[in-house]
């Protein structure tokens, strides 16, 4: 086995077979599961499937049509009451969860009153509004009424080449999947940055550094350590994806609306992964180089944060990247280190980034990553000779070996 591969393998096994790694690995999906669980619990507490009453003084709801319900929500029964007192008695007895009093002058003044003992949940309110809206449009063709209630005011956005479409009620899980992948890489980087910046600290502390540099080259040592750490990060990512897929399968079978009719765009997902890998490797190498040349952990963290911020610059420009995805700046950002990953993902939401740009960006990210590994190796070599003094960045890019 090549020495670089041995170092990477050693680094990987040393980190993965640690209890702390297992804790980190499981903590993220557990925290997400806990949050989702709490959300569902609160949502379920909000949803009451007992009927809703109404007192119709306008005559518009004399013969109400059943309202179609979107997604997995159970349709509520709407019970008519002749008098407000009857409805109040039904509310007090728990027969209904709320009742709506529709005055005679409705819809002229659009003023109806909802009575309840405990505030109804969001699902009840949505169905109640749909009930009112659907029946107000009873004299129109059903198609119009359905569009007004079920789709609402939402606008379906399609890319010019019709490859991408975001429904009016917002993107589902399949559509935001590439964004999740992009953010997962950034999250991994954030989690592993401090470790990367201290990649050779252990060797410096336990004095094995001289034994190592008289066994392997500085570049082999640094590249092996970076690749090992990147592999650790990818193991985390793969595990989280596995948890995510399991959660999606469970959520689909449980009928959760957001996970139904998933339209996974594999081209976008592959683009995110293809750009994410070299971007992650590139930044990992940069963080390692920072650790090798700075003189204290505090300084390396401060310098590292600057580079991390560069990754999220596209988020600040999200309006421009989404609104004018093929303008000059978004195109340039698609080729730069740090910004390429999120830029291309954001541009792809409402447009299709040309394939040639994705391919060129991937090739560039790979080149940046190799160059960053080279710089990190050189930084380590020069850092060793500096005896704790600050290393001049200009020395790093000199081609001639010192």
């Amino acid at each position, binding site marked *: 086995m090549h020495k670089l591969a041995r170092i990477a393998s050693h680094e990987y096994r040393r980190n993965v077979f640690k209890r702390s790694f297992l804790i980190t690995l499981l903590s993220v999906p557990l925290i997400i599961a806990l949050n989702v669980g709490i959300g569902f619990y609160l949502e379920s507490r909000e949803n009451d499937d007992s009927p809703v009453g109404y007192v119709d003084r306008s005559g518009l709801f004399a013969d109400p049509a059943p309202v179609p319900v979107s997604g997995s929500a159970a349709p509520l029964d709407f019970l008519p009451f002749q008098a407000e007192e009857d409805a109040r008695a039904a509310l007090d007895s728990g027969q209904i969860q709320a009742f709506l009093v529709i005055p005679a002058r409705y819809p002229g003044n659009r003023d109806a009153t909802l009575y309840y003992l405990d505030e109804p949940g969001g699902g009840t309110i949505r169905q109640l509004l749909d009930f009112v809206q659907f029946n107000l449009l009873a004299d129109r063709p059903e198609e119009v009424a359905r569009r007004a209630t079920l789709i609402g005011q939402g606008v379906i956005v399609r890319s010019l080449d019709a490859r991408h479409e975001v429904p009016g009620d917002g993107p589902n899980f399949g559509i935001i999947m590439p964004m999740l992948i992009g953010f997962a890489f950034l999250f991994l980087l954030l989690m592993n940055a401090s470790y990367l910046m201290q990649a050779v600290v252990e060797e410096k502390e*336990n004095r094995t550094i*001289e*034994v190592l540099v008289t066994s392997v080259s500085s570049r082999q040592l640094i590249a092996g350590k970076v690749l090992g750490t990147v592999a650790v990060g990818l193991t985390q990512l793969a595990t989280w994806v596995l948890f995510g897929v399991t959660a999606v399968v469970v959520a689909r079978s449980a009928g959760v609306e957001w996970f139904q009719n998933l339209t996974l765009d594999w081209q976008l997902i592959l683009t995110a992964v293809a750009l994410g890998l070299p971007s992650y490797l590139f930044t990992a190498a940069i963080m390692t180089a920072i650790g090798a040349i700075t003189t204290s952990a505090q300084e390396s963290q401060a310098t590292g944060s600057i580079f991390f911020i560069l990754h999220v610059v596209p988020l600040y420009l999200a309006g421009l990247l989404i609104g004018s995805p093929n303008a000059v700046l978004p195109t340039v950002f698609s080729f730069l280190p740090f910004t390429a990953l999120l830029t291309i993902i954001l541009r792809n939401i409402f447009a299709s980034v040309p394939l040639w740009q994705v391919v060129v960006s991937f090739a560039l990210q790979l080149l940046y990553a190799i160059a960053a590994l080279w710089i990190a190796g050189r930084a380590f070599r020069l850092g060793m000779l500096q005896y704790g003094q600050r290393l001049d960045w200009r020395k790093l890019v000199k081609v001639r070996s010192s």
Partner: protein
Amino acid sequence: MHTVQIAHVAKSFGSTQAVVDVSFDVERGEIFGLLGPNGAGKTTTIRMMLDIFKPDGGTVSILGGPMDEGKKDRIGYMPEERGLYQDLPLERCLLYLASLKGQPPAAVQERLTGYLERFDLAAHKDKKVKELSKGMQQKAQIINTILHQPELVIIDEPFTALDPINTQLVKDVMRELRAQGTTILMSTHQMHQVEELCDRILLIDDGYDVLYGSLDEIRRRYLGHAVLVSAVGDLPSLAGVIESVPHNGALKLTLADETGPQDILSDLVAQGVIVERFEIAVPTLDEIFIRVVADQ
């Protein structure tokens, strides 16, 4: 053939000149002693030999030319600031470091088992390095330095933290390696170990090479004009002796310039002294070391 050839190397760090002008050769299959007081430039010289530091001037030839990546597998180095991975089990740590010397674990396992047994570490092979005593860690370092059967061993203070039995063991191993043709460059302050083991030495002081050659030759160079005499009863007064001081159970007689050892022996015999011991006083390496460094 010279395994190492160093010619006029120099190295400075900022305004500090660690090595000014050092030259020496190490021949194949010899044990070479690199000596010098603290801060003399020994470690910097070794680091330049191994390409950890680039010299500011001079040339370094090692195993027949400039240092390169391929030669790293042919060299075993135990640095002054030694260390192993503290959190790894001993055997795994040694196998990993050997693998970085181009030795696959399967190929080196049998040799490692032999060394662990010989150095009395077999029972501790699964313990984490940090759980071992200093002496055990020192022995583990020595194993790490020679496990991949290097042609050149560079070893800094090999006897630190070792008891007399283990010191003897390490000396035996070093002699065996020499017998097998391995070249050993040893840096140490323990002069009696150098006298016992080394074929040739270099003394560095203040960044300069100040004494270089075979031990016998150097001793002859520093022979004092004195004899060691031990006799039954007190010694009579002897002509041509300018100083008489006790020395290791004998008397060390420093002679006047015009007096030779034969003159003293003749005088003793003539005076009927029963001589038990009579020898030319040869300086110890310690004495030479102190004298040379004090003269600089």
